[in-house]
């Protein structure tokens, strides 16, 4: 490794590592709010803003799939840090499907004001 490459390495470690560190630190200490990360908005005529919050299964599954995909990808890179790893097509399709479910649910609740199935069932039981 030449001197310039060694300098680049340490610069990258300090700046990139520092940026990850600062953002992770802010996330853990609450400096970057994660409140309501799993809660979505939907149309609600009874609310004065026209919207109300609800626990969103779509967001939860997206968080799980995203975390798994990111972790899998990072592990592959750490295992062989010479090339970008190959991702199985099925994995990409699963990720795309997960995002589509999230977006579909969001569009349904925000644009069309249709109650989700769980909420409707709870409401009917009451």
């Amino acid at each position, binding site marked *: *490794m030449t001197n*310039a*490459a060694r300098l*680049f*390495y340490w*610069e*990258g470690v*300090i*700046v*990139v590592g*520092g*940026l*990850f560190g*600062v*953002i992770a630190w*802010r996330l853990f200490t609450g*400096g*970057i*709010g*994660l409140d*309501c*990360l*799993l*809660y979505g*908005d939907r*149309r609600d*005529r*009874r*609310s*004065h*803003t*026209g*919207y109300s*919050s609800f626990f969103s299964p779509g*967001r939860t599954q*997206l*968080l799980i799939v*995203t*975390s798994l995909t*990111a972790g899998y*990808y*990072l592990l592959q*890179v750490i295992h062989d*840090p*010479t*090339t*970008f*790893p*190959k*991702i199985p097509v099925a994995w*990409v399709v699963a*990720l*795309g499907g997960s*995002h589509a479910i*999230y*977006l579909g649910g*969001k*569009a349904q609740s*925000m*644009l069309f004001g249709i109650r989700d199935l769980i909420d409707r069932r709870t409401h009917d039981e009451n």
Partner: protein
Amino acid sequence: MKIRNIEFWASLIGAVIFAFVIARWVPGDPKEKVVLAIEYGGLVITFLFGFMILAAIASGKIDISAILQEKAADGTLTGASMSRFQLLIFTFVIALSLFLIVVNTGDFPSTIPPEVLTLLGISATTYAVSKGIQTGAKNGNSQPTSAVAQAAADQATAAAQTAAHHAATAQTAAIRATAAQAATSQK
């Protein structure tokens, strides 16, 4: 001219001084010295700019507290946005991967595989579509039903108050007229 970002100028001057020192005092062929001066000058300035931004974020001068928040349909800041969060995660993962690969191979990858582009594409498209849905909901719900009803109720109340005021005025005038008429008839 007012200098606002002293750190920016300090970084720039520091890099130029570093390059000058290499070009002036490091022994070797003049062509190699020019290459070395540009190489190290570029590295130093990139590092100082990056460090400057990092220090500003850490000290709170650059506020990133709302980096995951989205504007709600009524214009206020809501809780954390899932689409922003996943975009942040994927950007970090790909950036870290690229850094590790460049450090280990000593070279920038000749091709970016389509999987990486697909991953980032899905993530960024989700954020864009999510933003579109929110904007659509905001435009379609600029006057929510309850707000329209509230405005109509306010107008009705104001009209009723005006009518009551007019009625009271008319009643007073009628009483005065009746009293005047009674006084005239007594005379």
